[in-house]
């Protein structure tokens, strides 16, 4: 559904995206994560045809991303979605339905159905009088007004309260389950981890890691063992009346047990710590960007 090959974007002397290459098959939820300025939004906008790449190519739904025809198959949700304050949700959505040549009756049915699913009331209220969360729901409804095959959502839950955020994340999951291809970026890595099939991690315009979350964890994550003893040994720190020593293998655990025994003590507890995507992301962000992604 989406093919990106050696995508590069340069602004003057600044390179925003460098040599990105990835594919997203039909029906997959694909996440792009990275710190601010990593190139996530520029990548998404190049996929949406808003920004022309300096080099490389992006194909969406079989069309070049710069082809206006592609936009008929795309639903795009930008990070900020300021609406036209003096319109009502329905008139706003109907206008976009018109632009996508959706028959008015179909558009009206689809609009109300989507707003029902998003639990959005007050449909005659002006958009300027709505809360940010309600406005975000209208923006999501707009991205669906043409029943697109591909959805590109840039920080869909940005700046929303936890309740609305969870609601929108769940809604996005439902969209994916209904067969739509979703490309998704978010700062909150918990959300990415919870709904994305695969992710790429970007830093300084380059992709530094890719794959399923578990694959990335296996490749870039380190399992830690926290071993607690009754006596102070080398490398341990006092914690709550005990001593904790962190090791990264079972050999380390055995070594700790021997050290404790030699000092007249014993091991009282062993805890296993699996790194979250956020831990991996932070590690990668601190590392050199040369992990992957060089053209």
């Amino acid at each position: 559904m989406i093919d990106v090959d050696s995508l590069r974007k340069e602004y003057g002397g600044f390179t925003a995206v460098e040599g990105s290459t990835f594919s997203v098959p039909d029906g997959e939820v694909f996440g792009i994560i990275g710190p601010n300025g990593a190139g996530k939004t520029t990548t998404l906008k190049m996929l949406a045809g808003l920004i022309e790449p300096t080099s490389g190519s992006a194909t969406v739904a079989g069309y070049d991303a710069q082809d206006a025809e592609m936009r008929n198959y795309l639903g795009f949700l930008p990070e900020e979605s300021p609406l036209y304050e003096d319109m009502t949700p329905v008139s706003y959505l109907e206008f976009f339905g018109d632009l996508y040549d959706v028959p008015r009756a179909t558009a009206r049915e689809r609009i109300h159905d989507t707003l029902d699913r998003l639990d959005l009331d007050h449909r005659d209220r002006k958009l300027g009088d709505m809360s940010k969360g309600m406005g975000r729901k209208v923006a999501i409804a707009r991205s669906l007004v043409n029943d697109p095959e591909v959805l590109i959502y840039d920080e869909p839950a940005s700046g929303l309260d936890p309740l609305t955020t969870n609601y929108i994340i769940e809604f996005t999951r439902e969209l994916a389950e209904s067969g739509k291809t979703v490309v998704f970026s978010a700062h909150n890595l918990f959300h990415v981890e919870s709904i994305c099939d695969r992710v790429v991690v970007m830093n300084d315009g380059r992709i530094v890691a890719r794959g399923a979350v578990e694959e990335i964890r296996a490749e870039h994550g380190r399992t830690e063992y926290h071993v607690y003893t009754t006596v102070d040994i080398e490398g341990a720190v006092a914690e709550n009346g005990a001593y904790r020593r962190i090791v990264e293998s079972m050999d380390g655990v055995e070594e700790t047990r021997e050290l404790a025994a030699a000092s007249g003590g014993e091991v009282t507890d062993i805890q296993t710590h699996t790194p979250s995507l956020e831990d991996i992301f932070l590690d990668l962000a601190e590392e050199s960007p040369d992990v992957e992604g060089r053209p």
Partner: protein
Amino acid sequence: MKADKTLRIARWEVSKNAGQLDRRTLAAIGVVLVLVAALTPLVASKGIALDDGIYQVGVADDSPYRGPVANDSTFVAVEPDARAFRNGEIDVLILPGRPPVPAPTQKGQAAISELRATVQAYNDDLMGFERNRTAAFPVNVSLRYVAQNVSTTGAGTDDSEPPATTRPTDEDEVGLGGGESGGGDTGGETDDADLQATSRPTDNGDEIDSGESNSDGAGGESGGGDTVGATDRDAGGDDGGAVGDGPAGAPSVGSGSSLFTDQTRGGTPADIAPPFPFESLVLAFAFVLPMNFVIQAYASSILNERINDRGELLLVSPVSRGDIVAGKTLPYLVGMIAIATLTALGIAGLTPAGGDAPLEIVSTAAVSVAAVAPIALLFLACAFVGGMFARSFKELTFVTVTLSVLLTSYAFIPAIFTDVHPIAAISPLTLVVRALGGGAVPLADYAFSTLPLLLTAGTLFALGAGVYREEDMFTQRSVPLKFLDALDSQLSSPRSLAKLSALSIPFVFVAELLAVALLFALPVSVSIPALLVAIALVEEVAKSVGIYAGFAHERFGRSARSIGWLGFLSGLGFFVGEKATAVAQLVGLPNLELGRAAFGTVTGLGIQSSPLVLVGLFFAPLALHAVTATITAAGASRDRRWYFGTLAVATLVHAGYNLTVVSYLG
């Protein structure tokens, strides 16, 4: 572009903005519109009568003065009460068999002067109804108005007659000078830098009537003689309507009053007022005034799309940039045209100088609207660019107010000289003034005054649309940098630089016309050198700013070869486009000395030399443009300071060339 998408966006633009108006605002707008609709025709037909009823005149019902007093709204007729007169309640007292007596106050003196003029006008009217026209107007004066050529060497001056400004003038010529007949052919009339006033005995009454003219003087025959009836009889005072100290003439017969009023039936040459089309100008201004308000709303709508990336969702929809820009512009253009149409119909219907038949009214209105439409488009184009370049509403206000003043000046100031000076030809409002005055509007005149505006508007829309994309429209760059972005968006290769230079021609042409309009009133010894430098600067900027934009965006190489190539391409594009200014010949603007200075170097007008020299002069501008563009390209390739330095050098070289050519042309 797709028409259906454009119309959908246009409809949305209307409905979106309609939502901004609450009922109270709509009601207020409605009231204002009703008031304007009610007052405009009133003002158009009667003028603003601030002096209604300011003078009290004591006059009996059977007094011969009763008629004039009753006919003039300035006066209020009251009983001729001597006590009231002494108490200062009456400004002029008219007792039976005695001349009018003014109150011993300044107001009384003003009242008696006004009464004197009113009586004279009243007498003129009476004379007009006299069956024996020969008796009423025994002397028939034929007046022929011609252009006053301010030049002493203008090409249009008839060699057989000395230029007007170098001739001694006599009283008649002073009285008639400075104007030409309404609707007169400007280009043709310049050949006669002479004023003529002849008297001949009246052959019949019909000839006397043929001298009627409308109030603004625009109804005169083109190049022909206007014949006015005049009388040498003096019952109303042969001071010809001048306010004197003597008693007011008895209202029976007489002369005086302006020859250019609707009521005129006769008068003396001394009464002739210059044919200044004040009324038509004021009415023409009514077309331009609403545009200043409409562009505020339009520019705000454009800027609103750029605030917080609001317009991004339109850009990601299956519509083109052209659809969006056209759709957002269309409602405002239609609104402007609708306002202009209503205004034109109202004015043409209430002041039917061109005839009061419905077809004539519609015809006059159609000409007016056709002339105003390019102005409206240029207003919108400038507002669009302003909306695309400004970073905030505060900055936008500054931009739009500046544009409003400039554009209104461009349209309005030259129109003041309608049928007085050839400079009027550059403004479409001149066509409106002529149409409202019942004059003809030749197609060539229409093309000359409107094509530069249409081409400029097109260029500005293209520039603005060039940055109507995600990468440019949401950035917070300064207006000059946005302008460079817009230029850069039109550059795909060095060759496109030639196209950009050629596209700058309409803008250059309008800027040069504006310079001519601003400088033409100065003495030729000052205005021509200033104009030559101004024109050189405008053209050098037009040629080089695209090159500078390209270098600023790292689009071009900076080698000497590249610089030379860029300079040549820019010069070539400009040279090709510049030849289009030959359209200036259509209405003879180059016959104006300043016009020759502005455009003669391009068109080769008035040059009488060998074919080889003519060919050389034809291609010399190409060499000039290529050389000067290369100079500025060299500066632009380094930095801004170098660019401005080389721009100054190129301007001086260019001005020197212009001065040489103008001197050669004589």
